[in-house]
């Protein structure tokens, strides 16, 4: 699916520790997204990127930062993880022509 990989796929960490999730794409798409998925909330946008070093906030950006130093990688960082950030995190790319989103396999993060 559009060559999107996420790492790690599963992570358990403790409150207060920093965590970085990686999204990698192989097809040179300009737009990349980070979502979190929680029961009853669907997918909520955390941050997105519209190019190298160009990022913008989504609806639930507090407590998260992102970086995109090269086209293929979009990193999501939790500076100091909290239990409320326990979730499944999906990365996605958007195709320029058709406006479709293709999602990565997801990362299940548990913060104890």
């Amino acid at each position, binding site marked *: *699916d559009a060559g999107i990989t996420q790492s790690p796929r599963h992570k358990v960490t403790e409150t207060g520790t920093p965590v970085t999730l990686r999204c990698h794409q192989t097809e040179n798409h300009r*737009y990349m*997204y980070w*979502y979190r998925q929680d029961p*009853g*909330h*669907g*997918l*909520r*946008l955390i941050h*997105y990127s*519209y190019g190298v070093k160009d990022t*913008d906030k*989504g*609806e639930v950006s507090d407590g998260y930062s992102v970086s995109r130093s090269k086209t293929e990688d979009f990193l999501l960082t939790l500076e100091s993880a909290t239990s409320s950030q326990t979730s499944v995190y*999906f990365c996605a790319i*958007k195709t320029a022509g*058709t*406006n*479709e*989103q*293709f*999602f*990565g*396999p*997801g990362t299940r993060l548990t913060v104890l």
Partner: protein
Amino acid sequence: GQQVMQIPQYQHVQEGEDFTTYCNSSTTLSNIQWYKQRPGGHPVFLIQLVKSGEVKKQKRLTFQFGEAKKNSSLHITATQTTDVGTYFCAGQEGNFNKFYFGSGTKLNVKP
């Protein structure tokens, strides 16, 4: 801020019955997309609607976009067990960069 409401949250049907999920936006949308997520999987794009009053069909699936571009529906005729999953709508406003997802409708089909 922008909100997209989706109902129902759950739907259990007997195989062969029809199914419909509805989305309503608090603001006028530029377009609306539909995604399907199988249990344990990731969302997969189904379709995008752009025009007011647009209706599109994919085999047993019928997608509609309201005249005011604030609501949409997905109807599945004669459900099959392969239709099991959660269906999400996602709307965009004038800025085509952000997507606002509904909370999803989880469909269970009993054989």
